[in-house]
């Protein structure tokens, strides 16, 4: 299955400074009853953005224009908590294309990569400098694994296979399916 390849993301940023933003904040569990994909933008950070009666709160997220601002600067340990892939789906549907954070939750990171959402974990000092420049344009480059904005520059690492998948728009399933014989041999060896 092919996805849109991602090589660079150039966009303005918005920041959520809190640390340990868990996946229940990104998408509350009551929105997990979906059986399809592509409709979770309204549920993204729902309880940060809306009152219980559905009226909007005075929260910066309600002023983000995701036509121009697709890069989220998030605090440390972003996406901790549950394994729900609905978290990257909701961020994607909301309009986020890259998350820059000092560190992201392990399962969230894997889920994001499987959905074309770039997660760049960068040095906390550089991250703080980018947060200072919130709203400015940032370039996230998968070719040289760099994040640049004005005179702030940081590098990040990305699991090499996930990087290739992102850059070529491949999904990982095709790769494992091509190894079926090896898997069958492993199964035969163990029984």
């Amino acid at each position, binding site marked *: *299955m092919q996805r849109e390849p991602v090589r660079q993301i150039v966009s303005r940023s918005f920041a959520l*400074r*809190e*640390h*340990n933003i*868990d996946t*229940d*904040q990104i998408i*509350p*569990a*009551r929105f*997990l*009853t*979906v*059986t*399809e*994909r592509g409709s979770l933008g309204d549920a993204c950070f729902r*309880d940060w953005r809306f009152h*219980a009666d559905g009226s909007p709160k005075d929260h910066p997220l309600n002023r983000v224009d995701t036509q121009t601002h697709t890069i989220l600067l998030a*605090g*440390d*340990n972003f996406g*901790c*908590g*549950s*394994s*729900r*892939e609905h978290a990257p789906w909701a961020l994607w549907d909301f309009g986020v294309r890259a998350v820059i954070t000092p*560190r992201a*939750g*392990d*399962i969230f990171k*894997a*889920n994001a990569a*499987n*959905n074309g959402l770039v997660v760049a974990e960068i040095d906390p000092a550089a991250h703080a400098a980018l947060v200072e420049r919130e709203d400015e344009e940032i370039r996230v480059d998968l070719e040289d694994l760099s994040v640049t904005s004005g005179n702030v520059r940081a590098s990040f690492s990305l*699991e*090499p*296979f996930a990087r*290739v998948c992102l850059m070529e728009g491949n*999904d*990982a*399933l095709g*790769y*494992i*399916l091509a*190894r*079926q014989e*090896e*898997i069958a041999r*492993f*199964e035969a060896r163990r029984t």
Partner: protein
Amino acid sequence: MASAPQNKPRTLFDKLWDAHIVSPETADSPAILYVDLHLVHEVTSPQAFSALEARGIPVRRPDRTFATLDHSTPTTPRRKGQRPVYISPAAQMQVERLEENCRHHGIPLAGWGSPDRGIVHVMGPELGLTQPGMTIVCGDSHTSTHGAFGALAFGIGTTEVGHVLATQCLLQRKPKTMKVHVDGRLPNGVGAKDLILAIIAKIGAGGAAGHVIEYAGPAIEALSMEGRMTVCNMSIEAGARAGLIAPDEVTFSWLQGREYAPKGAAFEAARLKWRALRSDPEAEFDRVVTLDASRLAPMVTWGASPHMAGPVDMSVPAPNDGDAAKALAFMGFQPGETLLGEPVHTVFIGSCTNARLSDLREAALIMAGRHVKPGVRMLVVPGSERVRKAAEAEGLDAIFRTAGAEWREPGCSMCIAMNGDSGRPGELVVSTSNRNFAGRQGPGVRTVLASPATAAAAAVAGAITDPRRMMEMCGAA
């Protein structure tokens, strides 16, 4: 990449990892890791089945796959033959989609009416599906629970659920290892939940990111299987990929006789193999953390992340960063104040962390002969049909009902609050579940995590209280 030479001491994790490598990792590609058991529930699977259908591929090993209904399912008691009433048509559709997917692909399902149905991490072990030495995955971060049996068990996302359905394999980079060594013994009235909350408070919410934790030491060995499951369950709350405990005679006798466990001579053969599942004495861990169990007290959380925890009689700490300050503001707690006596609105006893028979017994011991404080709502939700049946057989349901608590049908219930069981905005809930994230139990709901004993004591007192006071009164009576 060559496998490690035989003479290099290996951790338990290394042994589990090495035994499941279909193809080792290289600089360019992750390892292909074989999965022995894939547990499935209704919330994180529908889009994965759709992905298989889109490609026209079958489920590779339905015989290594086992499904249940737990997250979206109502827990309101029903009369015999009465159909479940869901919170929404979407919840019902999600359940029906899994029923349909299981039928279509030949996957065993512990569905409505099955005596095996339960919270996925309660059900797997009690059926004996979970066994030492296995790799186990599920689209659920608390899959780490099964590590209590010396299985490498971890949560995955829905795309990966699709990978496992299609290939029985996952692409994985080898994680790092952390040993949490717990010396001493837990004092009376202090249990596994208190221990894991203390461990998370020490490590931090992201402190074990990228690591698999092995819990070891005398205090761990002294735990029952249920206690070990509670500890491993919350590994993810410290950011860990998985939690592990080396299997021992406690593990083996717990497993013997369970439905899917090996029988007779096969069990004895398995037991011999399982005994080798422990870290070699000289094995090295990337990190080691030590704790003294004898210094612990019943624990409660004061903030909006599981690591924001301390002894029940602590003074609420002064916030050391903006997040702690924000959490305190959300909880409505003041630095320096004691939480003892803090009024409680709802008490929830349940979840994959603390809804096993021993947890219900622990709560019932407090509730027996006492009453839920008027105005407080208490929900007791058994972890599975088997737990429910066993609890009813020994009269625990009657103790809870007589005390004024609601005795529910099995399910995840208020832990994730997506089935209609939730708190009301502003309420303080003392909960035996695993996450106190803001709004986790309903918008605006404030959660205090605690053990079953501490939760039960809070229901009786109508306030946060040290459960040992009520235990002593039991002893004196």
